[in-house]
């Protein structure tokens, strides 16, 4: 089962096993620089670091620049805010492990699956399994999250 966010939102009746997929996004260099390069107004932007600059990354032993995992963890957070509305930003939790590296240019999409439901007063706390996959369907981030509906 899967749901298109534009037509399906999480409700109290959403069953265990239901999978929500957010939109795929290409981690273009410009977007990686915007995330990891410091404020646009910074002199010399983007700041050189292991995320923004291949030469910098190679100087430190990496094969090339790697995208900060926080950038695509943000994709999952965006998906969870879509599902649980703004309340997720004051009561939501998320835990993640980074299981593969991501390079600029990779395409990533977030997934959240209902793993368990728990009654909390009049509300339901959803326990979600989360992941990000690349365009080959390989997981690059896996974890869990909770949200209340």
């Amino acid at each position, binding site marked *: 089962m899967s749901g298109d966010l534009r037509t399906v939102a999480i409700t109290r009746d959403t069953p265990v096993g239901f999978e929500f997929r957010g*939109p795929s*996004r290409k981690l273009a260099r410009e*977007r*990686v620089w*915007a*995330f990891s390069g410091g*404020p*646009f*107004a910074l002199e010399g932007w983007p700041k050189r*670091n*292991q995320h923004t600059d291949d030469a910098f*990354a190679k*100087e*430190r*032993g*990496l*094969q090339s620049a790697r995208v*900060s*995992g*926080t*950038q695509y*963890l*943000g*994709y999952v*957070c*965006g998906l969870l*805010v*879509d599902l649980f509305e*703004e309340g*997720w*930003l*004051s*009561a*939501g*939790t*998320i*835990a*993640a*492990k*980074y299981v593969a590296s991501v390079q600029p240019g990779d395409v990533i999409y977030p997934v959240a699956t209902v793993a368990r439901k728990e009654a909390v007063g009049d509300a339901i706390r959803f326990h979600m399994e989360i992941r990000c996959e690349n365009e080959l369907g390989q997981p690059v981030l896996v974890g869990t999250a909770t949200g209340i509906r």
Partner: protein
Amino acid sequence: MGDNVTRSAISETRTADQLEVGDEFAPFEVLVTPELNQQYLYAEEDFDPRYWRSQGDLSPLVHPALLLHVSNNTHSPSFRLPRGIVNLQTAEETAFMSLCRVGARLRVTWVVVDRFERRGRTYNTRLARVVDQNGTEILRRTLTGTFVSER
């Protein structure tokens, strides 16, 4: 995500891989301007109006990716690594505590809460806390990472 470690003085002299349990990084402060928030909307390709349109008298919400990013300890003014070493994030847990809106002045603090060896690598875990100008806790996050040279 407990906060029961004994804190030591903020480390300004040691590199991040040398810090012990109780050591703190220097705090980081940032004013979330509309422009900064919108920079993250571009980075995240997430243009939901809740992040750029005011809601009555309320400013837009700060995107969660910005809140997560500023709580990476690489933002600390005291964060340093030895030459040839990179810090790789391996795992993390975050609890969002309060809504944060554009215009907030955030203060981020970090304390090392665990340090361990696994398969010959040193790992440490930091507790990050983000509070606004009123002292309201916005998020609490534990970050675990290691230090490697892939050469």
